[in-house]
């Protein structure tokens, strides 16, 4: 239809999960009043010097290893210069020609992967708020450690970019490097996109997209940009090399600045910082800290537990989720129901309460007990949900919850018989119809008993008692 191939490359910033900033002892915290997480170094006061955070280098190394990148044993910090009020020193400390890692890849679909160009470490800038009385500067974020991951232009459609980000996030989270929350800004993405005629091997003019604050926005902005560039080219026009900002509320991107006026960053090796010299022992130690990666985990779940692709994907989206699933199975739960309950019941319930999985009021053994009671039919699907809700609130054992709720299954004939008799007395036509051979009429009677017992009647026993009673009466 269009006659063009889309070419996309991504630049992703991931906040490294350090306690203090990349070059200062100031604490890293998502919250805090403006300018309260700021050290002299972060303001760039006269006379201050950066002191490198070893932990940041460790975490960035782990991220790089988890992405299959090659660690560079000799790398260097460099200064990137530009004037902006959120950049107190007039330069950002980043890495230039000698980054921490090169190469690597991310899976973006069946048999498709996107190569990585490099991974480097840099410091974050501050935050500006434009108000009626002027622009306010908050330096809480200034100096926070970031890893910038730059992909090769291997992505061919917006959906693949979306997958790239999902998979990247998964790997980084698994490696214990960052929580990668785009909404909170601990993962940020800029995209470069261009179109080239199908069959061509010369890239078209690329446009850089900024202000992509969620995975959805990345997807939407790229789809918009494909349409926009296609229209420009179809009309015989030329795509302008520029930076465009995404305005999600308007559903469109707008030009921010042309590439012709791009600043000269005058990269210089930072004379305040010695080169980062690593050895194999350091790299090995970081590799050992990573543990199982999501792809390996998905394969293991497929093979060991015979779970579907959808299930393993859900379980491997986050290391904690998979770990919790394994605790459930270890506590005796069957894999399939364990997966379903974890993904469809527990996680949504925790989200509603703004809790993380590790803060769950229900322990893995507690949920496994519930699943066992469900399996041996002590609980029905319906009552199990009531018990689950009770467990979320009270933190008792499943058996105790059943007692508290009066939810024990009615599975002795002596208790159930009076209820069966009452149901037949209340719905005589249905009983007659069953006796006359209209078997499905029995469902009405069962439904009545279930309603009265709030689902506690053992379905098998109920069925047999209804049939024997009707047969005996007719």
């Amino acid at each position: 239809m269009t006659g063009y191939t889309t070419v996309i490359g991504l630049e992703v910033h991931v906040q490294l999960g350090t306690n203090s900033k990349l070059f200062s002892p100031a604490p890293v915290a998502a919250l805090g009043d403006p300018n309260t997480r700021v050290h002299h170094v972060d303001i760039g006061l006269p006379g201050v010097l950066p002191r490198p955070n070893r932990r940041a280098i460790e975490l960035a190394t782990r991220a790089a290893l988890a992405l299959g990148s090659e660690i560079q044993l000799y790398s260097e910090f460099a200064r990137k210069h530009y004037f902006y009020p959120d950049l107190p020193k007039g330069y950002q400390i980043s890495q230039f020609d000698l980054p921490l890692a090169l190469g690597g890849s991310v899976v973006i679909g069946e048999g498709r992967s996107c190569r990585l160009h490099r991974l480097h470490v840099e410091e974050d800038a501050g935050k500006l708020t434009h108000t009626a009385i002027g622009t306010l500067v908050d330096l809480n974020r200034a100096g926070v450690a970031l890893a910038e991951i730059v992909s090769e232009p291997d992505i061919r459609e917006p959906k693949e970019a979306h997958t790239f980000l999902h998979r990247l996030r998964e790997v980084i989270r698994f490696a214990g490097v960052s929580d990668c929350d785009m909404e909170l800004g601990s993962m940020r993405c800029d995209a470069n996109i261009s179109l080239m005629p199908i069959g061509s091997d010369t890239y078209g003019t690329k446009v850089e997209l900024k202000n992509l604050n969620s995975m959805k926005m990345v997807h939407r902005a790229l789809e918009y940009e494909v349409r926009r560039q296609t229209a420009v080219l179809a009309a015989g026009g030329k795509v302008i090399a520029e930076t465009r900002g995404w305005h999600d509320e308007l559903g469109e991107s707008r030009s921010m600045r042309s590439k012709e006026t791009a600043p000269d960053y005058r990269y210089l090796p930072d004379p305040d910082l010695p080169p980062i010299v690593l050895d194999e022992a350091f790299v090995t130690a970081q590799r050992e800290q990573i543990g199982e990666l999501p792809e390996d985990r998905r394969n293991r779940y497929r093979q060991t537990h015979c779970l579907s692709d959808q299930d393993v994907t859900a379980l491997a989206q986050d290391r904690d989720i998979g770990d919790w699933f394994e605790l459930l199975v270890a506590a005796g739960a069957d894999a399939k129901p364990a997966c379903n309950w974890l993904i469809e019941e527990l996680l949504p319930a925790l989200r509603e309460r703004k809790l993380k999985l590790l803060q769950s009021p229900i322990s893995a053994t507690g949920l496994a007990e519930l699943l066992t009671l469900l399996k041996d039919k002590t609980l029905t699907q319906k009552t199990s949900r009531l018990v689950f809700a009770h467990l979320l609130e009270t933190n008792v054992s499943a058996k105790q919850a059943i007692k508290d709720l009066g939810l024990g299954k009615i599975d002795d004939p002596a208790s159930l018989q009076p209820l069966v008799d009452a149901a037949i007395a209340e719905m005589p036509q249905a009983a007659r119809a069953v006796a006359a051979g209209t078997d499905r009429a029995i469902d009405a009677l069962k439904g009545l008993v279930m309603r009265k017992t709030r689902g506690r009647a053992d379905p098998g026993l109920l069925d047999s008692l209804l049939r024997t009673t009707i047969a005996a009466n007719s």
Partner: protein
Amino acid sequence: MSTSPTTATAIAKAMRNGDLCAVDIVQAQLQRIASLDPELGAFCSTFDDRATANAVRLDERQKAGESLGPLAGVVIGSKDNLLVENELASAGSRMLSTFRAPFTATSLQRLELHDGLLIGRTNMDEFGMGSTTETSAFQKTRNPFGKDLVPGGSSGGSAVAVAADLCAIAIGSDTGGSVRQPAALCGVTGLKPTYGRVPRYGLIAYASSLDCVGALARTAEDLALWLDCASGQDPADATSLPTPATVSHMLAERSDLKGVRIGVPRELNGEGVDDEVLTATQAAVAQIRDLGGEVIDCALPSAKHAVPAYYLLATAEAASNLARYDGVHYGNRTEQTDPSQQSSIDTTTQSRSEGFGAEVQLRILLGTFASSYGYSAQFYERARLARRALQREFAQLFERCDVLLSPTSPTAAPHFGDHEEDPLARYMWDALTVPASLAGIPALSMPCGQTADGRPIALQAMAKHGHDGHVLQLAHVFQMHSQHHLRRPQL
């Protein structure tokens, strides 16, 4: 003052013996500053309260019989680019004329920890950029050997403060000769230690890969005392060397220079040096030979690239280091226009144009050019290569020599207004000091004579990276056998 001991070593010893009272010392020095400095212009301000309070505490501890530190009672001036908590730190610039330091530089903290008494901040060329202290935005500093003579720079205030006995030790900083050259012009002894030996945290940066905290004093012995107290690793400075220098004890080990191999690089001992200077330094070399030194004629061919390499690297780093003065977070912010009516880049441009003097603006422009896209390979990168070549040559020379000698400055102190208007010609004035800066090696300047009209002349000694003790030892022996460092100006 004439009966009081005037070297830091003697003062500290007398203090520890209970022969001196710190409050009296501080009072006497403040009085001397008050009477002499209006004409000399060495100090920008004095720390009367801080110095007095520290002196009172020191005297109390002495009375209580506590042992006192190695700098007890030693009054110390510090250059205006070193931070002292709650005091102004302006680096000679209008940009920072109201900047008050929130903490004290590591190198000064250590001096107070060893019972030194910081007494005030000394005038300097703006951000260390200059060789006469004339680029200071605040005041003129005069050489005590002649009121119409420049004191040298950029640590001119520190040199004058020591030369005029306004303090026993003055701290300076040396990027391309800013301690050694004013020491030479004012007839005092000055040390630029090995790069990284004394922490830079709290030193307002000029060119980070070259900046060294140094000191000026009357004797090499005092400088050794200072270095022992100020050196050592600082977690806040990633470029600081892991081991402290322990040099004072080395000075007692020698009273002659037997077996010391002395290199005299041709490139630094002839061309461009005034005859009077050369005659005096050659006489000093001869005296060193008489003291047992083995003098070796040698070459440092890369020295001819030192000045251009230095100015490209120093200005590129300076343009970067001074980018922080943007009128946004602290320092001068323009009041010329309504900030809500202009963009932040206009505010920054205007604030910098107002805050920086001409020499600083010139060097920022040079450095920006040398490091800009398309030019950096041609200028900045080539300068780095030249620096490495020079470092290699020095390393080779130090396989054959223990110390290298040259004049510190090619001329004695010129008169105000004498020096060239052409900046390139002015920069050549640094030709003898920048090689050691580029190599990061220790270098010391000591008085070794005077011109016919009485202006001081100095000899420079350089040693291998990390071997600060070698230059101090040589200077100490030289001073044991000569009087040049004892000559004082008539005030």
